[in-house]
């Protein structure tokens, strides 16, 4: 849009900005570009330094850092399977409980909710994400955990024939895998619901009408026209929730009990990659500290991968399924 023509006589046109006037523009442009680039470089730099700090532990323990089952601080042995397993268990619980509720909420809010209630209720669900993680930890450990113990004991006794999930009624502790997973479910619910809502809103009204015109009930219409269309996007949302659950630290460290072993039952204490860092960092030195960095590295790479896959799904969901011709 900047005029650049020279006049017929070959002189510089009056409206062409002088090189000096163009300078602020260039400064701005390249400055901002540099800023954006700097962020990329920064993240890469952090990554490299983290790898550096983890080096000692990883060199020493190799693959047993991830697969070995023995996290012994007193003897400086850091085989982190309890951490990895604990992370996976709590995240799995979070997904199993959180995703269905989140998707159900999203369907209700976009398809069934009276219009006037839609905004306020959606905002309330989103506010779940505003509560700081330490507050969830506080509430979880002092309110939720003790209240659930009787139910957990009952469950363990009644379903004692199922390995891990049942049994161990006598070893039920207030802080355990389950409650950590439950708190995580509450924390990922807003994210998954928000993305699901977004995706469901993109379902073409045409298809919904067609379903209704065929004589579908409202639920059948949702099943026929909405859910299949929204599935990739919702999957992506669930994976983003997973990413969040994997990395959540403070709420988990408070309610999981920080036991450096793989608990035998769902209602036993455990450990996660994130919570071990928060719990043990204070006094860690030398190889212990390096091991904690390594845990952070594993966590970082794990969440990175999950996020990248998730975004692939969400992108697929957003891309309109346009008819070919």
């Amino acid at each position: 849009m900047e005029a650049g023509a020279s006049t017929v006589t070959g002189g510089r046109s009056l409206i062409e900005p002088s090189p000096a006037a163009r300078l602020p523009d260039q400064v701005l442009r390249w400055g901002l570009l540099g800023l954006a680039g700097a962020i990329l470089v920064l993240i890469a730099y952090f990554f490299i330094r983290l790898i550096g700090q983890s080096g000692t532990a990883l060199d020493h323990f190799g693959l047993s850092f991830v697969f070995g089952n023995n996290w012994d601080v007193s003897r400086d042995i850091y085989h982190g399977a309890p951490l990895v397993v604990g992370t996976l268990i709590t995240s799995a619980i979070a997904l199993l409980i959180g995703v269905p509720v989140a998707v159900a909420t999203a369907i209700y809010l976009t398809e069934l909710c009276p219009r006037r209630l839609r905004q306020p209720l959606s905002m309330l669900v989103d506010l779940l994400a505003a509560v700081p993680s330490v507050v969830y930890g506080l509430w979880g450990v002092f309110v939720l955990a003790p209240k659930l113990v009787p139910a957990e004991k009952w469950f363990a006794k009644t379903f004692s024939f199922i390995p891990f999930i049942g049994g161990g009624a006598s070893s039920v502790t207030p802080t355990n895998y389950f409650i950590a997973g439950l708190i995580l479910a509450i924390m990922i619910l807003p994210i998954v619901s928000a993305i699901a809502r977004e995706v469901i809103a993109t379902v073409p009204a045409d298809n919904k009408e067609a379903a209704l015109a065929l004589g579908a009930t409202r639920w059948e219409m949702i099943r026929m026209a909405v859910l299949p269309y929204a599935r990739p996007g919702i999957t992506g949302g669930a994976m983003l929730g997973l990413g969040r659950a994997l990395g959540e630290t403070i709420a988990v460290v408070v309610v999981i009990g920080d036991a450096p072993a793989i608990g035998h039952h769902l209602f036993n204490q455990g450990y996660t990659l994130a919570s071990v860092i928060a719990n043990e960092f204070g006094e860690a030195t030398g190889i212990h500290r390096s091991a904690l960095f390594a845990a952070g590295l594993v966590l970082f790479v794990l969440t990175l991968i999950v996020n990248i896959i998730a975004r692939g799904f969400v992108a697929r969901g957003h891309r309109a399924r346009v008819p070919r011709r």
Partner: protein
Amino acid sequence: MSAAERIQALAPVSGRRRYTDTMMRGLLLAATIVALIPLVLVIYYLIKRGVGSWGGSFFTSDPNGNFFGNPGGIRSALLGSLEIVGLATLIAIPIGVGVALYLTEYGKQSLFANVVRYFVDVMTGVPSIVFGLFIFIVLVLAHVGGNFTAWKGSVALSLLMLPIVVRSAEVVLLLVPSELREAALALGAPRWRVVFRVVLPTALPGLVTGSLLAIARGMGETAPLLFTTAGAFGLTFSLSQQMNALPLQIYNDILSPRNVVVDRAWGAALALVTLVLILNVVARVASQRSRMA
């Protein structure tokens, strides 16, 4: 068969389907209510167990690490939070808006811009504790300007807040009508002027609400501060020292064996959540209003 007869014949099946429909609708409504119960319960218990602490010198005295007697209030934590997050905001917002400006005004859909967008998106998924570790390694271990200091906490928080600012700012900047930009450019204004005098002022309300959400997020984070500021009981205004913050104080207090200290944790949590919820509600309602305007 007449229509009436056909509908009659359909009745058993349609009765069953209507039943399923009603059940599913009820289930979906129930799920929504279930989703909201934790929010209600958290707020309820915060008020129930936290309000009691809000008396006397709660906001005017600092916490102390004493084993007996009055455990003190949360003044240093509250002020510390405001300072640390304040500095983080000063870092994150200009940089975040700057990056967003680059993406909307210059980079647009170029390969580089898309890479940046992708990275920023991925950054939102990085666990906050990892940011704490990053800053610990790069700044604390290297003893850059001291060991644990408040400003390093701010830097860690700003990393966390940055992607939030960039994403919301980009959305808002894209909403500025291109006609506005083109009109200004057609009048001969250089691009930088258009950005500062037309684009930014128009986008300002949206930028503010996006920033409020980022600030709310920053105020609630504990993990990054654990490795950078590490907390302290006493009140200090110097950002180059260890400083207290509300989340740190709460985290510390949860593990205490003393009931009065746990009570203080509830009171502090109530204060923190009040701040955070106010920021959130104001930001969200404001952005709703502007969308409907």
